[in-house]
């Protein structure tokens, strides 16, 4: 069943198309290059995993798409939602878009909610504002939405304030709120990072259920390779503001071809394998985004680096129908036997 659904997805046109996106911040110490020349697609109904460490540009990419960059940030390039250009669109257009066609969920639901307003007020506002519903109709709709994310006793919960909810419940409220306007695209930035593992499992199952039921495309931004493996159809690995490898999820975990992907996957302690005496590491430090080296940004930490890597940025090359990689190294990776 799954495979037929997948094929249908692959032939569908892109829902969101990012072309040559660059994001810069001007700071007192000069410019910081957060995203560099990024090309990316989100297809209808797919879950796209966006993996990277701090400073990889995984979050700034989507803040730029939504027009939510910090004041000193500046985005260039093109972002088309259903063919319509939305990058740097007027704020009225973006406000309408964010409430209607694109939903967002952030890491810490407490900071994304107003502590002085009841949950009901914050949720109904969305429908009154974007859909012009009456208060009563909006409330009825919110009760349905909370029930859909498995919150019991929804009518009473609407009268409660955010602090009266546990972290997992608040994240459910956030998801319910984001889905009120039935968006085509849901952007989730580290949606489970602040939650306990047991609650994380519940939220991931909920996201999976929602995408099956509504066909909502989901962008899952996370540093956690375990989380991506649960949910994503395709995965983009980011480093220093660049896409270094993109592949269908099974290819990425089973037949990765970028040294950074290899390093990430090998340095995660995992419960499904025998315990190694020593964890594999990626030597060195995270990249300095104030520098824009002429070559591959990962080269200083890369075990396979050759002289060309410091001089020339490797282009993003297709290795297969669903597999892109930006790397000069042509040989086999050390862990390939295991990875294959």
């Amino acid at each position: 069943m799954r495979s037929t659904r997948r094929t249908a997805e692959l032939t569908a046109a892109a829902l969101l198309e990012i072309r040559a996106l660059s994001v810069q911040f001007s700071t007192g110490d000069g410019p910081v290059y957060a995203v560099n020349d990024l090309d990316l697609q989100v297809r209808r109904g797919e879950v796209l995993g966006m993996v990277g460490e701090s400073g990889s540009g995984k979050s700034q990419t989507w803040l730029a798409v939504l027009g939510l960059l910090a004041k000193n940030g500046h985005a260039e390039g093109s972002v088309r939602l259903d063919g319509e250009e939305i990058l740097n669109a007027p704020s009225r257009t973006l406000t309408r878009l964010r409430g209607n066609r694109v939903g967002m969920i952030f890491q810490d639901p407490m900071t994304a909610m107003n502590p002085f307003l009841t949950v009901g007020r914050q949720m109904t506002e969305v429908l009154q504002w974007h859909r012009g519903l009456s208060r009563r109709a909006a409330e009825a709709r919110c009760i349905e939405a909370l029930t859909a994310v498995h919150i019991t006793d929804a009518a009473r919960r609407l009268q409660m304030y955010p602090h009266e909810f546990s972290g997992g419940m608040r994240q459910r409220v956030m998801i319910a709120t984001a889905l009120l306007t039935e968006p085509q695209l849901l952007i989730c930035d580290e949606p489970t990072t602040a939650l306990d593992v047991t609650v994380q499992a519940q939220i991931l199952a909920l996201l999976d259920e929602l995408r099956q039921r509504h066909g909502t495309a989901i962008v899952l931004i996370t540093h956690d390779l375990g989380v991506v493996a649960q949910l994503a159809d395709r995965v983009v690995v980011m480093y220093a503001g660049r896409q270094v490898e993109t592949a269908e999820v099974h290819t990425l975990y089973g037949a990765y071809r970028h040294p950074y992907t290899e390093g990430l996957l090998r340095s995660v302690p995992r419960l499904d394998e025998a315990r190694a005496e020593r964890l594999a590491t990626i030597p060195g430090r995270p990249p300095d985004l104030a520098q824009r080296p002429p070559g591959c940004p990962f080269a200083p930490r890369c075990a396979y680096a050759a002289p060309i890597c410091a001089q020339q940025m490797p282009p993003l090359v297709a290795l297969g129908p669903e597999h892109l990689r930006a790397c000069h190294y042509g040989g086999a990776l050390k862990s390939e036997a295991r990875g294959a």
Partner: protein
Amino acid sequence: MSATALLEVRDLAVHFPVRGRGWLPVHRTLRAVDEVSFAVRPGEVLGVVGESGCGKSTLLRAILRLIPVTAGSVRLSGVELTTLEKAALRPLRRRMQIVFQDPLASLDPRMTVGEIIAEPLTALLPGLARAERRQRVERALQQVGLLPAQINRYPHEFSGGQAQRIGIARALVVEPQLLICDEPVSALDVSIKSQIINLLLDLRAEQNLTYIFVAHDLATVRHIADRVMVLYLGRVMEITDRDALYAHPLHPYTRLLLAAVPIPDPVRARTHRAPPGRDELPSPLALPSGCVFRTRCPLATARCAAERPALRVIDGRAVACHHADAAAGQP
């Protein structure tokens, strides 16, 4: 075991009074830590795991005497800490140090790295000569893989991983026996996290250190700990040697935690997905009767509501569950 333990905690309780509000205020008690007993042997790493609200942080603070203890005993090499006067406690503080979760937030931004690392020396070994102090600071820097030349830099010039190295150097500079690590790698990136874990393992081997390593990430704890203690709502559910715990957990809560850890393998993730529970943690102000875990437990029976299971030894492992005998009997 108690004769050789470096740290021994017995029946430790930390309760906080919670004042009621309104006309007829009901004063209640929050039992953050209750009847917790365990020992840490010299040279071992004891991992402590549990969800938020399980009492991990309260337990650490109580051991370090940063908060008052309601009942019970904490002994470091046989010396009772809970009743010691402040002045008598000071020489013992040198023997146990703490590393915090958020490395940048736990370093004073106005102090240089050298001043930060020297601070515990000034506080705990005030008699030390200046040259000796400097020497110790430089040694601590080297031990954690930083350069002595970085001694005059400020915290903001360092990345998260390097800042955590500074935090570790600050703890090590007084040459403690016991290092209490409170989520030391949780805020770090994947590629940096493994560097710090390896550093902690190296330091332990070189200096015969003992760790209490608190984390919510069970995969990381498996990597560093020799034994693991599982806490839930302030109580010990299970304390077991690492390999036994991960291979065959006896407590249903340990099983629930392990099943929830996402595995970075899409094939396994999609075929072995455990149905997640839909239940919520009970309020710590209104704990369930009997076993505190029973409201989320798939095995709960009438006995679990009536009778609180004691921590007892089964197959050489300590478990607080009425059903642990049956679990131990299974392959």
